[in-house]
């Protein structure tokens, strides 16, 4: 269990909890079953011919017994699924939170880009035709769109601790898998679709962002950094980015 990377998200605690007892339950079932197999090999090989004459047809007791065990195991599965579903419902079936931090995540072979909507809280338009990383416009932001003027594009994801985050998942080319082990977070970024993902980072620190869906020769190095910082630092950082944006003049 201590194999899991340190968790930094609100739901992560619950998830680790569930994963833990699931693994325990399954592990002991596994041990029991293997023990039965070994036992069979050890003892049944040398079963005395005497008791062989008996036990030819299985009685009803046999079936009842088997059904009881089956029932118990089924109960276990249901318990797993039930507890698991509560977390799932909380994470995915719940509506959007109050004033979440909005960030758009875009997967590109082989890079993650993060876009903050800026003061107006609106993402500017993007146009495929305008995409060009060399000219510093990897997302194809449309200069004509006022909403886009204050959009901050970053290659590192910085988030304030303790606030719900609403991610908007996009992909420019192929399917990528947005995977943050430290946040127990994973969802595919599928081209042509907008995915939504909510979570609440709690523990400040550095976390890695990986790509979990094979997307090309650079799949293994398609990695980015998530930095969770106190709200104040976050505000300072975003303000700094805005300033440098204006300093560097309008968008390409």
């Amino acid at each position: 269990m201590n194999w899991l990377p340190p968790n930094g998200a609100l739901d992560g605690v619950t998830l680790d909890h569930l994963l833990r007892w699931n693994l325990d339950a399954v592990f002991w079932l596994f041990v029991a079953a293997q023990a039965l197999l070994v036992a069979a090999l050890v003892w049944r090989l040398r079963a005395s011919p005497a008791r062989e004459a008996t036990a030819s047809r299985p009685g009803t007791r046999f079936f009842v017994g088997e059904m009881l065990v089956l029932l118990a195991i089924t109960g276990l599965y249901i318990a797993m699924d039930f507890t698991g579903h509560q977390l799932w419902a909380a994470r995915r079936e719940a509506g959007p939170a109050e004033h979440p931090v909005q960030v758009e995540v875009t997967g590109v072979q082989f890079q993650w880009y993060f876009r903050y909507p800026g003061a107006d809280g609106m993402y500017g338009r993007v146009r495929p035709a305008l995409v060009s990383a060399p000219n510093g416009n990897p997302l194809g932001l449309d200069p004509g769109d006022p909403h886009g003027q204050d959009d901050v594009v970053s290659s590192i994801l910085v988030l304030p601790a303790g606030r719900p985050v609403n991610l908007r998942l996009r992909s420019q080319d192929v399917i990528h898998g947005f995977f943050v082990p430290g946040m127990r977070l994973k969802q595919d970024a599928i081209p042509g679709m907008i995915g939504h993902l909510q979570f609440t980072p709690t523990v400040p620190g550095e976390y890695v962002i990986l790509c979990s869906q094979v997307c090309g020769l650079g799949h293994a190095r398609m990695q980015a950094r998530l930095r969770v910082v106190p709200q104040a630092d976050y505000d300072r950082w975003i303000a700094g980015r805005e300033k440098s944006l204006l300093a560097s003049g309008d968008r390409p």
Partner: protein
Amino acid sequence: MPATFTRHQVETERRDTGYGGKPPVDRRPTGGGGGDENWDSRPSGRRGPREQLLRFRLAMFSGLAGDFVFFAVLVSAFFVHPNSGHISPADLFVSDWHPMQAPPILWINTAILLLSTLTIEVARRQLFHEIDIMEEWLGLGRPAVRRAAPWLLATIVLGILFLAGQWIAWQQLAHEGFFFSSNPNSHFFYLVTGTHAFHLFLGIGALLFAFVAMFRLRKVELRQIAVDCTAWYWHAMTLFWVFLFVLIVFFQ
């Protein structure tokens, strides 16, 4: 290497007795049913003259089941498409799903195809007409074949007419600048109709084969099989077409 695969007595006897190969098994196929318990009392051996026929029918039906899945999958594309579109360079959402005005000739084609199932059904029935078949068993001429032949011919003609009709439909659409890849609806249309037309093409091949077979094949049963299986295939294709037709004309 294979020389070492020397099987013991019975296994060598289990060597291929070939299909239609001579003795011993062809005389007494080990076929059939097996549903009821009182087999032991029942003298085994050929289980009615229809044994082989049922076998082929079953094969035809399971094959058609797969074919049905095939078409169902193609059609599934239809249901993900209608809400599809793209962002034009001028940044307008352009729906790519241009409802297509199904060329009127499709109605005629459909009528033709429906007619053809009737004709082939008649032909099929002829080959199972008790008295005539009796005569054929006894080798007194081939009344059934003589009765069925014209209907089979009619079916072939109708089938060719249908294909021609489809061709015309494609031409018309092409004239309206509605090409294979001009929009998702069009390539959906061309793909399903094309695939279906290909199936019918094979069907016509089968019809021709059945027609020749009726006169060439010596065994009455084999003649019946040839026509029967072709007929069922043809019915299925008509069914699929009606399905597609309704989809194309009414659900856009």
